[in-house]
């Protein structure tokens, strides 16, 4: 099934990326081309093959449950675009 402009708009909504109206058709064509390129994977039988999420099949290493980090919030707040009372500032969410 070929990807449609409507689907592209839905996906862009999910990804929080705005697409201008005049770009939709061209972008749909481009993404359709890429999706049909990756569609060739469908021809390969992968029954009984486990997915490989980590290339070395490694398992997550866990460290001891000890606090090792120091509070560096001031440093991190200093590079934020907008801050108030040591909090990140965003437009009003609740009226």
């Amino acid at each position, binding site marked *: 099934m070929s990807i449609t402009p409507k689907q592209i708009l839905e*996906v862009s909504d999910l990804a929080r990326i705005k697409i201008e109206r005049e770009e939709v058709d061209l972008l749909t064509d481009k993404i359709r081309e*890429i999706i049909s390129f990756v569609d060739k*994977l469908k021809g390969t039988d*992968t029954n009984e093959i486990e997915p490989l999420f980590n290339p070395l099949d490694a398992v997550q290493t866990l460290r001891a449950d000890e606090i090792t980090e120091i509070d560096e919030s001031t440093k991190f707040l200093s590079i934020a675009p907008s801050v108030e009372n040591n909090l990140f500032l*965003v437009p009003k969410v609740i009226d």
Partner: protein
Amino acid sequence: MMEIHSQSIAQLRDGLRRKEFSSEEVTRAFLKRIKSLDHLYNAFITIDEKEALAAAAIADQKIASGRNEVLTGIPIAHKDIFCTQGMKTSCGSKMLANFVPPYNATVISKFNDSGAIILGKTNMDEFAMGGSTETSFYGACFNPWNTKKVPGGSSGGSAAAIAALLAPGATGTDTGGSIRQPSSFCGITGLKPTYGRISRFGMIAFASSLDQGGPMAKTAEDCALLMNVMSGIDPKDSTSANKEKEDFSANLSQKLDGLKIGVTLKDCSANLDRDYQICLERALTQLEKLGAELIEISLPKNSLAVPTYYVIAPAEASSNLSRFDGVRYGYRCDNPENLLDLYTRSRSEGFGDEVKRRILIGTYVLSAGYYDQYYTKAQRIRRLIRNEYLSCLRDVDMIMGPTTAGPAFDIGSKSNDSISMYLEDTYTVGANLAGLPAISIPIGVINECPVGMQLIGRDFDESTLLNVAHQFQVATDWHLQSSVERDYA
């Protein structure tokens, strides 16, 4: 004495130890070249001359008092994807044009501890998404061998800086070939280590199960020196591998007698430029002369590697890049009307076209109804690809093939053709999907543009790759050929 800027890292290290020159002289020599020549290549995004010279002064004091570390006093350029405390880290994007990290990537801390000087931050495709360094917000980077050609990407700035002798060595990252392809296009040596060999902490994430930092330099000997500094387990990266610290320089001199090299040229011959095939065959003859046994092998599943990669990489990228929302750091749109508008406009204005396209593809293949069809399917095929490599690597010590389809292509020639650009990764993505180490080294020059060969090794066997690459470079001089003398004699 050879000019400072022409020397390898090993030569600079020896010269500094013998006090033939100071770190300040070395650092000034490279800074001077960057200032006078980088307008031709656009290899650097950020230079901090004052900091570099201050670090060089400290290095000179250390050398004077005999407190040298491995790289004391040697300037190294870093891909602008590694966070550098107090120094802008843009990842080639408008999104991070104002981002000055409050911490260092582990790789940067390791270089600092080794005494190296940060020469500057190099140009790259935006968020490492590209194979030409044309998608950088800071303008395209140009190949020093021919400025009408791309330097490759995404670590194009690092490769161009080394080829133009603006830096003796650099860091790069490789998600689908981003160290090896520009190394091939610029006539330098670049190693993508085994997944997990080098910490990814503070290395801005593109596709976390594929991303791997690595060294780029003129020679394999220098790459080994850089590997000694960069590698090692890091508690801050839970995917970094728990391996004993290795000395990658220790085995460089070993002879190649009895080494088995699998050759994949038959698989590739239909797509390869004839002149490039000749270079590859000549390199094979050389390897044979050095004592290696060549065994023809085939990797039929590799034809699935590029489409597999272009499902997994955008999927992981769409997740990783969701962090850029205009709230905590990076670009924020003006006068957002509400929270959704803040997210959407900050992302739409901050990301370039290729990044947006990949986020959209990634979001699509991860969305309900398509996840199994694309993402899980690609991860299953990834296992088939890795199994095929592992099966070959039971019979041979490494696999030799082309790094790219040919020499560097013209600037602009592929920017409107995504598939053609993606196919640039045909020979390199397999090693990323399988997690295997792979190196590209120069093996010839076609129409005044260099080409490389790729050697893919067993898990965590970078040492043998560097050994073969070094022995090849002892016997040949392709790695010593340079674009620079011709232009600036």
